[in-house]
């Protein structure tokens, strides 16, 4: 009996084939979907290694954190401006009339277990999301990764940045607190300033003149939790799909050409590293959420359109627009029975429209100017493209200047100068600083091109002072980056077989006689 059972077991195992259960699952899937061939290619997909390639990963993973924390928050948040009396753990607000949106946000912060942590994680993740998209885009721009064939992905990325900013602004407005309400009021007025359609746009959206009929918060809620996330999710899938199809770019180097990709394989190496990175990004938002307070709305109070606080500033990614609004002269046009508020229209509608249009068209513009219609898979070093790098530097200088201009009042107070002087400083600086930044960057790039071995770290030396009064220098031992290690990439294997190392760290001879894949560690 027992011998029979053992035989059955053995034959059953044999029937499963050399790869056991996994082999069987792959077989079943392949019968139906034909996944084996493409799946194998995907597992062997090579990802080049460079620190700057993880910037986009930060965006991706903070988006995952946003979705997870957002789902939690949406279970408790009440998107309504209905006035209710607050009763809860936060004593200073007890018995006060507040809106339901505000009340539920305070409740999430104080009465829902873990709620404050998740709320702060959500806000921090939103800031990291927008910030990392901007830095990721800067990397793409300065290294020329947007060039043919990747223009479409650049376009999708820019669209996602606009959506991220919008999503952030709308999410910021949802708690219906004093600060975000003021931001919403400004957003309303900006939309209202658009000729022909402005007043229709705002009365349609708000359900009437500001503050409307209480419909804006529910509408913003569904835009924030469903519509924009869905669009971002769709664009993100295309973004990553194109990345896989077109393969990753890489910096030039030993063995790296326009026609190959050098790096580590998708499975298991890249997968382990990137999954580890997902956990670390989540950890960063958790630690920020735990230790750095963000948007304490209970201190601001529920929104009252006739109240305001000092030093009113939007979230950082809107700062450049606020700065532009502050330094714009008051050029309202009035005539023929109409008003066109150029003092709002130009800085808050035309200017950002222009910025994003130029950003989206940049790959086409550059192709036109340079006449370069080739396919590029190797990245530029910024110094090798001084004009592009200078243009990018000037652009960021412009944004930073405008961002600084969004705190004119704070700066005037801090430096004890008149607001007028600060204002005029920024009105001039906004033109001068980008030009200087561009020129300096251009010259720096040209200089760097001429210097051999620039960017390499110098070996440090230890200066010794002997008892006889003699100075000697002793070089320190080489650190990892000091040694120029040549890449000798191995050709992509038909299959990647991972072999264990023996105790001395040496590789074991070729393959095992069975030819069965050995996977260790």
């Amino acid at each position, binding site marked *: 009996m027992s011998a029979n059972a053992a035989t059955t077991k053995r034959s059953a195992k044999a029937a499963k084939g050399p790869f056991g259960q996994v082999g069987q699952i792959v077989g079943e899937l392949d019968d139906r979907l034909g996944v084996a061939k493409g799946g194998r290619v995907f597992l062997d997909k090579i990802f080049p290694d460079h620190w700057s390639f993880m910037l986009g990963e930060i965006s991706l993973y903070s988006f995952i954190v946003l979705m997870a924390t957002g789902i939690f928050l949406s279970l408790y948040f009440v998107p309504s401006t209905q006035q209710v009396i607050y009763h809860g753990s936060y004593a200073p607000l007890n018995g006060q009339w507040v809106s339901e949106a505000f009340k539920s946000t305070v409740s999430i912060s104080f009465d829902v277990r873990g709620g404050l942590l998740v709320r702060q994680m959500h806000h921090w993740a939103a800031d990291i999301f927008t910030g990392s998209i901007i830095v990721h885009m800067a990397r793409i721009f300065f290294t020329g990764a947007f060039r043919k064939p990747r223009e479409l992905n650049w376009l999708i990325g820019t669209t996602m940045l606009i959506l991220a900013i919008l999503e952030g602004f709308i999410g910021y407005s949802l708690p219906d607190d004093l600060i975000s309400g003021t931001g919403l009021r400004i957003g309303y007025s900006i939309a*209202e300033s658009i000729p022909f359609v402005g007043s229709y746009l705002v009365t349609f959206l708000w359900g009437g003149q500001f503050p409307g009929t209480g419909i804006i918060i529910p509408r913003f809620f569904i835009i924030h939790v469903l519509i924009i996330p869905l669009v971002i999710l769709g664009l993100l899938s295309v973004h990553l799909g194109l990345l896989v199809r077109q393969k990753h770019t890489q910096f030039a180097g030993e063995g790296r050409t326009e026609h190959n990709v050098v790096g580590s394989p998708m499975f298991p190496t890249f997968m382990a590293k990137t999954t580890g990175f997902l956990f670390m990004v989540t950890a960063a938002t958790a630690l920020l959420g735990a230790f750095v307070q963000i948007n304490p709305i209970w201190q601001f109070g529920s929104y009252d359109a006739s109240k305001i606080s000092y030093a009113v500033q939007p979230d950082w990614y809107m700062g450049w627009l606020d700065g532009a609004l502050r330094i714009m002269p008051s050029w309202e046009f009035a005539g023929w029975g109409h008003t066109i508020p150029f003092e709002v229209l130009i800085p808050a509608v035309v200017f950002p429209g222009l910025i994003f249009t130029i950003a989206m068209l940049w790959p086409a513009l550059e192709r036109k100017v340079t006449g370069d219609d080739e396919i590029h898979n190797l990245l530029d070093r910024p110094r090798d493209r001084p004009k592009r790098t200078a243009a990018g530097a000037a652009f960021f200088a412009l944004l930073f200047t405008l961002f600084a201009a969004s705190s004119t009042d704070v700066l005037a107070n801090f430096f004890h100068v008149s607001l007028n002087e600060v204002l005029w400083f920024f009105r001039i600086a906004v033109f001068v600083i980008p030009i200087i930044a561009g020129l300096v960057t251009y010259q720096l790039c040209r200089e760097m091109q001429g210097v051999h071995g620039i960017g390499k770290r110098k070996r440090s030396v230890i200066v010794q002072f002997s008892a006889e009064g003699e100075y000697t220098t002793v070089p320190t031992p080489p650190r990892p980056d000091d040694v120029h290690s040549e890449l000798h990439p191995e050709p992509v294997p038909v299959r990647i077989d991972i072999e264990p190392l023996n105790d001395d760290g040496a590789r074991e001879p070729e393959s095992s006689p069975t030819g069965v894949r050995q996977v260790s560690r």
Partner: protein
Amino acid sequence: MSDDDLQPSRTRVPMPVAALSDPHMGDAARHPERAEKIIAGIFVLAIVFIALFGAGYVQNWRPWILGGTLGIGLFLLGFGLTAWGKYLMPQGPFVEERHSLASTPEERDAMSAALVERSAVVVKRRKMLGGLFALGAGIFGIVAVFPLLRSLGPLPGDSLDVTDWRKGTVLVDSNGRPVRRDTLVVGGIMTVYPQSQVNALTGFITDQGQAVDQTVLIRVSDQPFTTVPGRENWTPDGYVAYSKVCTHLGCPVGLYEQELELLVCPCHQSMFNVRNGAVPQFGPAPRPLPQMYLGYNDQGYLIAMAPYDQPVGPGFYERTTT
């Protein structure tokens, strides 16, 4: 059939787990067991912290403890996994050939030909059908916009031009109390609303009253004065009132610089002189704040003698210039 025949033919390429020559990796590659032990230690610590987070959640510990344990636990988990990937998994470098995505010229031509020739059949020979279908789809596109957009809210009409202030409307404070001759001393300031906008349920001002009708009342002196010619009797007992909605972007003009007699908008620093009709003296605001014609009623309460003579707040296209 021998075992060898069952094996697919393939070239085998030896794979390094971590390159010995790489100074970053050499140590771990030489002593994988040590690296494994360290990573195992990291994972054990991660498990401890994540379990602590769970315990903390059950015990309802403070948010910073929850976030701290979760953050440290997840960080260790991620760090360990990354280190595992970096030191104990095949590092390469491997090279993968990049093949052109482009098809052959023949394939391109075949696709273009199919598009051109087939649509020639459809469009040229059936012009009427194509035209009608396009017309139908186009009309549907336009018609579909109506329920999507038009039903969202009312047409603006004159809603952007008017406030709730009428001739005889009593000024009340944020608690609904009417304002009297002696409510403010000289130099005093308060925000007032029309009495009609007191919420019967809460006793406070409605959203509409707060957003649209908010008016700033200042007692500049104890004597009536004229802000602008033509507004001679608008400031009884030195009381002057302006719309509190900034003409720039609609923020409440909430700061009052008493010595300079300037109203300041904290959003973008527009400044309005209350003596001369709130003409903007500084900042991006394009127009003066609308002034309210003040007076008293029979009971001695301050009232509006007329509605605002122009729309309050920021500019918009339909705003008339007169």
